[in-house]
């Protein structure tokens, strides 16, 4: 059953085509008259040539070599792979949303602005922030936007010595790179033996060079930072700001809000918490919300409402400017808005409740079999360490491959870095008890398989369309595109 799939270029036959244009109905001139010859392409254009049915079959076959949330359980920690409701997709492709130009006159985009306005109101209530921008196209983009706002705030006050951002070891993975993108230095803050940010170490680390603390709460260990109030106080007293990475907001909707915890800036991952699909890598959405005193620094434009009319407000003299060519991934916002309207306040809170029940339930099943380094009530996810299994010969990565053979998507592996052989498990709110039971049973079976024949587990998977792929070879001698002459 193992086989490679031909590349689309290998299926190409000269003269085939997958689309036919209507003929040009304006009086035509010679191309040479319209375009100086030296500016014209002299290089051959080597795109593939296929009929429509070839293309459909090619990509349909590719889709069968792929696993999505619709295929099965996808407990990828910190990614919140919940079910993507189908009505969201139907809403986003309505021509009145999908076929709008970003420069259309305001009177022709009132429905879109009303949606953005309503969405912002919802996000404000969900997070206790005062204003939002929808421009950031992803979580990491939101982080960067948030840090830019914090930077503009400090610069505006003439406070130029703040060049450091504090990040706990249990922070979301993109945080350190974001800090560098914004021209800041990273200061790592350790965790204590409970897995929480070490408050004393944090107090030591903050000073008048601290621009901000970036915190994921609950953390990537799935633990709520119980000392958030003294933490916020320590940072604020030193003149720094608090940034909330919303990657894990799915744990606490309706229970607690970043704005009430003392956070000044937050980004949400609407492709996680608010159910929009991840598309094999994107598009996502990373709206950023801020407290009152940071509103002047938000990207332009903001969406305003006067009477019954909606408009774009560009009049923010201290704005950081723009982080996206237009207004961000509007189509993704349509999906998230649809979800919020379907769920309502009670539904969103129930989603967080169920996400937390599912995680704690799965943890209680798995801790009978695997080592759970931080064995306490978790939020939406928890971390297992496969260190004992690794000693037997099959670690976290091997357990992941064994799960592939049983039709489960594996958890996030080798992250967070503070747990050796980490498996970060997030079952989400949209999974049934039977699914979680079945996953636990399979995890138990894998544990037994490791006891019996760790070597075999270490060489899996066995039932997938390709076997374990040689990632070292891919990186050492990179082949990053198909080339004609190589055949």
């Amino acid at each position, binding site marked *: 059953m193992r086989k490679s799939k031909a590349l689309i270029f290998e299926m190409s036959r000269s003269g085939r085509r997958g689309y036919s244009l209507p003929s040009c109905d304006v009086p035509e001139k010679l191309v040479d008259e*319209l375009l100086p010859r030296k500016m014209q392409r002299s290089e051959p254009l080597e795109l593939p040539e296929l009929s429509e049915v070839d293309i459909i079959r090619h990509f349909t076959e590719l889709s069968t070599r792929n696993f999505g949330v619709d295929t099965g359980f996808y407990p990828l920690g910190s990614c919140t792979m919940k079910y993507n409701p189908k009505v969201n997709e139907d809403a986003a492709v309505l021509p009145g949303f999908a076929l709008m130009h970003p420069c259309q006159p305001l009177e022709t985009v009132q429905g879109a602005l009303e949606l953005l306005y309503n969405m912002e109101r919802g996000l404000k209530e969900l997070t206790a922030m005062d204003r939002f921008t929808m421009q950031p196209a992803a979580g*990491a983009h939101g982080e960067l936007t948030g840090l830019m706002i914090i930077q503009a705030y400090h610069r505006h006050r003439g406070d130029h010595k703040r060049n450091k951002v504090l990040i706990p070891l249990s922070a979301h993975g993109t945080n350190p790179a974001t800090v560098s993108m914004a021209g800041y230095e990273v200061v790592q803050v350790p965790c204590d033996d409970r897995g929480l940010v070490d408050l004393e170490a944090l107090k030591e680390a903050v000073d008048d060079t601290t621009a901000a603390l970036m915190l994921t709460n609950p953390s990537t260990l799935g633990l709520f930072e119980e000392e958030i109030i003294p933490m916020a106080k320590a940072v604020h007293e030193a003149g720094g700001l608090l940034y909330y990475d919303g990657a894990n907001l799915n744990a606490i909707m309706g*229970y607690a809000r970043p704005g009430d915890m003392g956070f000044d800036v937050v980004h949400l991952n609407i492709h996680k918490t608010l159910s929009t699909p991840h598309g094999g890598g994107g598009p996502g959405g990373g709206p950023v919300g801020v407290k009152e005193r940071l509103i002047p620094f938000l990207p332009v434009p903001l969406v305003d409402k006067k009477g019954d009319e909606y408009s774009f407000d560009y009049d923010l003299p201290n704005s950081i400017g723009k982080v996206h060519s237009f207004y961000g991934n509007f189509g993704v916002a349509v999906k998230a808005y649809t979800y919020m309207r379907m769920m309502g306040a009670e539904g969103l809170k129930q989603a967080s409740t169920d996400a937390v029940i599912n995680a704690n339930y799965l943890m209680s099943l798995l801790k009978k079999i695997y080592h759970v380094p931080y064995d306490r009530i978790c939020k939406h996810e928890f971390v297992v360490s496969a260190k004992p299994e690794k000693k037997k010969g099959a670690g976290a990565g091997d357990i992941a491959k064994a799960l592939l053979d049983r039709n489960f998507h594996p958890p996030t592996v080798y992250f967070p870095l503070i747990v050796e052989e980490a498996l970060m498990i997030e079952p989400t709110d949209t999974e049934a008890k039977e699914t979680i039971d079945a996953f636990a049973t399979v995890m138990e079976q894998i544990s037994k398989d490791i006891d019996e024949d760790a070597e075999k587990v270490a060489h899996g998977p066995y039932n997938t369309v390709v076997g374990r792929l040689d990632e070292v070879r891919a990186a050492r001698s990179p082949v990053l595109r198909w080339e004609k002459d190589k055949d």
Partner: protein
Amino acid sequence: MGGKHYLPLTDQDRKEMLATIGVKSVEDLFSDIPQQVRLQREMDLPPALAESEVLKHLNSLAAKNKHFNNCVSFMGAGVYDHFIPSLIKHITGRSEFYTCYTPYQPEISQGILQAIFEYQTMICQLTGMDVANASMYDGGTAVAEGAIMGCGATRRSKALVSSSVSPFYRQVLKNYFNSRGLDLEEIPLKDGHTDLDELEKKLGDDVASVILQQPNFFGLIEEMDGVADLVHNHKAVLVVSADPLSLPLLSAPAGYGADIVVGEGQALGVPASFGGPLLGIMAARSKFVRQLPGRIAGETVDSEENRGYVLTLQTREQHIRREKAASNICSNQALVALGASVYLAAMGPQGMREVAEQCLQKAAYARESITALEGYESVFPGAPFKEFAVTVPGNPAELNKKLLEKNVLGGVDLNPFYPELKNTMLFAVTEKRTREEIDTLVRELEGWK
């Protein structure tokens, strides 16, 4: 009612699960959140709607908007009304593609990984570059990241950007550079093109990146002869923002010496969606591969020598390299890139050439017809690809209002971006526009006073 049907746990399930966990109530699971930060009320959100109600609501919002199906659009400036072949949505609508995450587990992600590899190849075929990534957020962020790549590669901290690069992209670029403490200088215009004498004057040995756009924001073809030599003589990097749909007709950027090619890929079968999701294109010569931001798919084999694909060169990336990463980008626009691959495959070399030629012909016809009218003048000399700037006899906003009465979305007013250009509009004419539609526009312009 509402979206409760997305939540499969029954009350009985919850009861049993809490018992297994060993807690009495749900409340016990949230006892780690300090009372002071607990929300002591229900959130104040509109009531939950049933699916039928939510669709009614969204349809009513959508119905308030004008769009390409009930108007004829001449808007461009980076986002265009090109025809989108039907097969694209049927591929991107396969839920194995759209409901998966970034392919961290390659053995069950061969579909999206191979699709990304094919996308990378097609972007290289169009641009002549050696390597492309899996996508950036949009044209603006791709331009910014391309300029930053140049800084990384040269260990310099200054970029020169032409004023003929889209102002939408320059705003993003400026912000990224300002935040990071990098210097940015603009090269002025000369007759709507980059002033190459000014480029030469400004180009010192402290410049990392020079950013040009082809065709430029005004739809004009920039003179690229000798530019790369000039840039390379100062050991700087030439970054070109290209419209991929122009490339079947125009020289491949590799041909005139570009080092990094970025751009907006919306023209490749991507719905305009009020400006997003768009598609940021990022490609480069192989010597810059270590500076390339974002995901890259690469070919490898399994233990039985079956060919397969993985995400590779990850030591450039945020999750491995942390604060030393080339960029912080994680989520990208992968599904949009998949759609663009389907578009390119459906068009093939012949179809791409035809689309590009029809844009060229129809834009030329429209420009000639409009500038033949009294009061309408072409602003800049030179060849337009699919859009062109004209001065109009009055206020562009008022003109657009009049055009809207005939369900025509007119041009983009250039004054907010170029204060020196008064009563000047940018009209885009894609292959989708018919002669009749263009003639209607011309007639309406003629009758406008």
